[in-house]
């Protein structure tokens, strides 16, 4: 198996396990740590997570596939998430969505050929009062206009 957690990440997993009475409960933290290290969750990553937590591989598979924030294929260096849910939609989210789509030349869950950008249409991000919004990796960009979106995307190196 080629995927192995780094020593530092193994220590983080041990820290997470201390929060819970079972090691299975540390599964979500562990998947996040694995995703941070490997960029996405492959079959062998899932097997290693199961190995480290001493749980069944199917337990990991079931959790990984349930949530939208775990990716089973490599995403871009900048993962762009556009919320199109109702509050954002009322304030022009679909225009923002079309604009980002056209600018990057990719559709939902697509990745640009150079691996720089990936795009995802997401459900409510809890930014309804600051709509429309996009999230890039861990950061929220709110109260957007088409011009602002262009500036933000152009600023990403």
């Amino acid at each position, binding site marked *: 198996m080629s995927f192995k957690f780094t020593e530092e990440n193994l220590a983080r997993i041990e820290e997470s396990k201390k929060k819970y009475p*079972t090691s299975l409960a540390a599964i979500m933290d562990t998947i996040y740590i694995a995703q941070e290290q490997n960029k996405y969750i492959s079959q062998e990553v899932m097997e290693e997570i199961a190995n480290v937590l001493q749980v069944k591989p199917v337990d990991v598979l079931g959790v990984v596939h349930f949530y939208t924030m775990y990716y089973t294929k490599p995403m871009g260096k900048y993962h762009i998430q556009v919320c199109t*849910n109702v509050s954002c939609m009322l304030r022009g989210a679909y225009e923002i969505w079309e604009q980002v789509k056209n600018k990057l030349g990719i559709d939902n869950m697509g990745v640009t050929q150079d691996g720089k950008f990936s795009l995802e249409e997401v459900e*409510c991000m809890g930014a*309804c009062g600051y709509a429309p919004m996009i999230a890039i990796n861990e950061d929220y960009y709110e109260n957007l206009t088409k011009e602002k979106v262009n500036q933000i995307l152009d600023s990403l190196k």
Partner: protein
Amino acid sequence: MENIKIVLPDIPNLDKWDVYLANGGFEGAKKAFSKTPDEIIDIVKKSGLRGRGGAAFLTGLKWSFMPKTTDKPKYLCVNGDESEPGSFKDRQIFEYNPFQLIEGILITCYAIGANVAYLYIRGEYHKWIKLMQKALDEAYSHGYIGSRMKDTFGIDFSCDIYIHKGAGAYICGEESSLMNSIEGIRPYPRVKPPFPAQKGLWGNPTTINNVETITNVPVIINKGWEWYSSIGAQKHPGTLLFGVSGHVNKPGVYELPTGILLTDLIYNYAGGVPNNKKIKCVIPGGSSMPPLRGDKIEGVKMDAESLKEVGSAIGTGGVIVMDEDTNLVKVLARITKFYYHESCGQCTPCREGTGWMLKTLNRILRDEGTSEDLDLLISVANNIEGNTVCALGDAAAWPVKFMIDRFRDEFEKYVKRNVVIPVPNKVHSMRETAIPLEGIKK
């Protein structure tokens, strides 16, 4: 209206430890620790505090369900999974008043006899998770949580608070699903009974409260139940964080006493509708709550009892305003797409019904709908409602039922533009492919 702020007071830098302490921070906890747990529960019961997560259940009553004598560990789960479209209130607490939330968790744990609390925060809130963790680290370092509480407060009680980070699933806001998520298994909702107070996290007694609910607690203890119960609506006292979004000039979160007029909230606080347009529709408590007609919102008060009287519910207090030009068929299709996407798939009526409703609404958006489709939508919604393990089924059904019922004229206009009834030539499985929201980008 009197400017009473309980959850988000107008104090700059309240997220700083020294500022919080200088403004009466942890006074509520100190008072609470001088009383017995039963006395605390009694105060919260008398205050009339109701849950801020959606169901508006009496908080003190919920706490009293926890068994008094048990050899099992007890837990508190604090729900900050905030994913209901239209709701964005809890993140304000994480950002502006994290220590009051921590203080509320301490008092609640003491009252129910729990030594461990899990604060569940949605995974997308990276920034707010970091802010909350920083606040927790600070409280730990000062001995206000954890094993040094005896030295700080002089009581034989300790409490650990851990953040559990979600990973993008609306269903985890449902209490039993939230517990499964913490346990590390697929977060399918559990059948109730047994309720969490009987059999919760890892089979142990557990209480689950919303972040905003818990943040009210220190002030109730500090200022007394008489003071708290005199604020706002009699049967639903206190203040609420109203998140106003959609077609308003000043969207945002407004903390106001319950019972405020909906029109007051929209026009006086949220700045009214852009270009002075009329309001066509308002959803008063997050996307799953029955919508109200814009011409029927005069005199509507924002509290659980008053909204029930006009055929809606307070939910999370997430008010979504739509102006006269809004296409409600598109809005309903978008809301339905959300519930289709977020259905966990455990119960057949919800898993299949949400997709069926979305397909039907897409057909109407393609100008291929008929009047029969409107009846079909209501029929499917009726078959979802009440027939699922958790309330996501109801949440998906209500917007469809009530939007069509209350805006039938608008939906009829849409379907009467078309006279051809399409006959599908083959049947697809609902889950073969993701269903895009057609027509929405036109």
